[in-house]
């Protein structure tokens, strides 16, 4: 999604719209509830950036925090997941998958079911997840599940998680 990241237009948000976004985010990531004020301080300038292909980015004081494709769920930026790892379900891929994930590949089921991989949390299909890797402490990508974890185990073939944001993609390097 972010092979290149370029904000075409920005729009300052009305406080009511801001509140709507906050509500949606806290709805989606209940674990963030008590730190949401740190992430999006009430006084901060919240701006919505529009990117190519209907991607919206929520910028707080000019720093991307969340992004969204069309009306889909809000995804956190990787840096935010690094700060608050508990905010979303975690899936851990095996060692062999790391280099593919870092270059932006979707996550195939075998990479999640093999011996080195673990699925820390159970989740349904179409849920935002953080991708970790065997032997690593921090997340390396954000994705959206295409099947539930149960299905991933039983089918064990094809794309399990669609990748949306990964280390060193356009969005990452733009905020470096």
């Amino acid at each position, binding site marked *: 999604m972010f092979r290149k990241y370029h904000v*075409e237009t920005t729009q300052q948000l009305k406080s009511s719209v801001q509140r709507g976004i906050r509500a949606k985010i806290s709805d989606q990531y209940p674990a963030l509830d*008590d*730190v949401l004020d*740190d992430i999006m301080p009430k006084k901060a300038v919240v701006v919505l950036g529009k990117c190519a292909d209907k991607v919206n980015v929520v910028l707080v004081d000019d720093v991307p925090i969340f992004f969204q494709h069309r009306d889909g769920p809000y995804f956190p930026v990787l840096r935010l997941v690094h*700060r*608050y790892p508990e905010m979303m379900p975690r899936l851990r891929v095996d060692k062999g998958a790391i280099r593919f994930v*870092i270059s932006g590949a979707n996550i195939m089921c075998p990479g999640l079911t093999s011996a080195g991989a673990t699925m820390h949390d159970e989740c349904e299909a179409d849920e935002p997840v953080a991708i970790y890797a065997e032997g690593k402490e*921090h997340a390396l990508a954000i994705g959206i599940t295409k099947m539930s974890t149960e299905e991933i185990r039983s089918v064990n073939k094809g794309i399990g998680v669609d990748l949306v944001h990964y*280390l060193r993609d356009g969005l990452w390097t733009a905020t470096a």
Partner: protein
Amino acid sequence: MDPIEVEYCSTCTCPLEYCENVACARGAAEKLSDVKLEEKASSEQATTTTSETGGDASEDGTKTKSGKKSKSKAKEVVITRMSRNRRKMITNVAGLEKFDVDLKEASKAFGKKFACGCSVTKGATGKDELDLQGDYSEQLGELIVKTYDVSAEDLRFVDKSKF
């Protein structure tokens, strides 16, 4: 829930543990520290040999430099991004004809590929150029290198827009 401060590598911007996975210089240095030492020794040898023949080398260097300059002036594809009406962009490609590219056919191919208007226009110097409606500067460079006999070094990007 307390925030965790993650340390990022200064060269590859990743968390430090991922340096080894992204061919970052720091990660590579750690892994190949002993190999590097060998390399250093061999490079030292190399420098001594070059210093012996230093006189000739400098002469050669100036010659090739001037030659390169004239060559790059002769053959180059310049991709310019221009703005029109605030947010609308035009991508202009000049110099393709020097690589034996049929501009008319190229314009059709580009127009089709990017689903945009693409036309052959007379440039400032009287040469034919291509104008694409929209900002395709990045993808266009890739496409040109892929389809035509143009290397990535022959491409030059110019940004004349305000955005």
